[in-house]
């Protein structure tokens, strides 16, 4: 079985509000699959449907070959869930958090203790077992939340914005662990609005907005398909867009206006830059196109009131 999650026409409505509007995707075994999009895009709702927290209101969803919502207990037994907000049990100490959680998966005694200690070591939390969770730093709390999600050796780990709010160092520590988990064969599904995170971690991803999937695929291919290799950013270029486009001629593939700035997507930025050289812009920047450009192109324009 190579598909771990299969969704077809998957939808979720809260009353009259449509949070997820009939989406299709497939997550393959062993990959890291990302949901990328602005706040309110429907990423978290989708993830919550996958881990059986919210029942879908339309379409079909199977996880590990089992139906949602019919076989939720069996699904949840094999999942790990890292929610957006750390929900460590504040009334239990660090080690107790893992041990009590293990009981929900029928793991107990020395098995539970051994697994818990392995996880604390893996996440750099040795010696913290007797701490109260409130005494941990933000990064440690996050790592503990991920550790807890792994107590049952899940085949699929869901991470809802795993590094939001962490400093760069703490974020990198989380990434390292996630890489290692992937190497061990755990399938990862994550939501994020950090482009570097998606580009670093995800084998494939979809970009969501307003409950729909706008584009999907491997990060590099998405960039190549939607933007071209390079971007020339023209600071304060929006007002003179026609003039700039005229000068750029066939050297650019597409453009995006974001506020006062103008972005030109192209395959050869150097030539384009030269062509625009004498227009008198003080902020002309050539850089490689990234996922961020794809994201902005697909979701960004309208937020600037286009």
């Amino acid at each position: 079985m190579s598909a771990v999650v299969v969704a077809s026409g998957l939808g979720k409505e809260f009353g009259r509000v449509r949070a997820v509007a009939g989406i299709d995707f497939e997550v393959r075994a062993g990959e890291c699959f990302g949901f990328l999009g602005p706040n309110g895009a429907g990423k978290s709702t989708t993830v919550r449907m996958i881990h059986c927290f919210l029942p879908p209101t339309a379409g079909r969803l199977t996880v590990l070959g089992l139906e949602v919502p019919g076989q939720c207990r069996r699904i949840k037994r094999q999942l790990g869930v890292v929610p957006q907000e750390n929900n460590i049990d504040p009334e239990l100490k660090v080690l107790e958090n893992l041990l009590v959680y293990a009981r929900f998966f029928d793991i107990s005694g020395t098995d539970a203790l051994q697994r818990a200690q392995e996880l604390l070591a893996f996440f750099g939390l040795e010696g913290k077992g007797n701490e109260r969770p409130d005494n941990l730093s933000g990064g440690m709390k996050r790592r503990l939340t991920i550790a807890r999600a792994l107590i049952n050796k899940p085949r699929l780990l869901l991470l809802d914005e795993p590094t939001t709010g962490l400093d760069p160092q703490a974020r990198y520590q989380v990434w390292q662990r996630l890489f290692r988990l992937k190497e061990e064969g755990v399938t990862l599904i994550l939501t994020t609005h950090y482009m570097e995170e998606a580009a670093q971690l995800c084998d494939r991803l979809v970009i969501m907005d307003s409950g729909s999937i706008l584009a999907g695929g491997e990060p590099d291919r998405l960039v190549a398909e939607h933007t071209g290799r390079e971007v020339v950013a023209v600071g304060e270029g929006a007002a003179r867009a026609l003039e700039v486009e005229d000068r750029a001629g066939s050297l650019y593939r597409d453009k995006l206006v974001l506020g006062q700035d103008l972005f030109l997507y192209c395959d050869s930025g150097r030539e384009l830059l030269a062509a625009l050289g004498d227009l008198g812009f003080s902020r002309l920047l050539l850089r490689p196109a990234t996922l961020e450009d794809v994201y902005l192109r697909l979701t960004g324009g309208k937020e600037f009131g286009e």
Partner: protein
Amino acid sequence: MRLPDLSYLTWRVLERHLAVFRRTWVVNLSFNFAEPILYLAALGLGLGAYVRPIAGMSYLQYLGPGLIASSSMLSTAYECTYGAFVRLEFQKVYHAILATPVSVEDLVMGDILFGAFKGLLYGTVILVVLLALGLVTSPWALLVPPVLAVTGVLFASVSLIWTGLFPHIESFNYFFSLVMTPLFLFSGVFFPLNGLPPFMRELAWFSPLTHVVNLTRGLVLGRLAGLPGDFLWVFVLTAALLPLPLRLMRRLVLK
């Protein structure tokens, strides 16, 4: 109507609550314990000195078993309003547990059992105090703890129904002032109901605490007349109410 999705994992939820309780029980117990003891001292000894015997009981004898029932009810009510709401809304403990194979119904039932456990415990502590004071006069008192376990489920259900209907921290003040306090005052804990005007007496029959007080007092003092009726009353209401919190809380948790 769908059947509640309950499993043995309910016990795991109870285990989690007991693991927390194990860390705080000394503080917890002493605080909850203090209030009924103060009532017993102030009213039983102080006021009791001026009260004529009630149906052959001294006022202390009369009051003591009533406080078993009320103390049990109130500790369950606190647990299943403030306690449950904090776990749901502020600590997000519920959400963490629901990511495991536990169902919402397992979770809510675990809360009900824990609420009942607290009622059982705090009521039994008062029973032990009464025993030490020589106020327990019948071996039937051994049935008080199992009765409290059942009535605990009842009060836990009532409290969680409120929590499910009015899930705001301020709403619990109203629960205690509009529901718990009237029950506490007019269910025969402090005085016999037959002194009240007829309509209030009839109203008191609808108070679950009235029947629980009858049960604890009857068992502690070995006055068994009418007790099967009281137990039946409590049992039927418990069975009727129990499904409601499971449904209401489901709606609340999965919003």
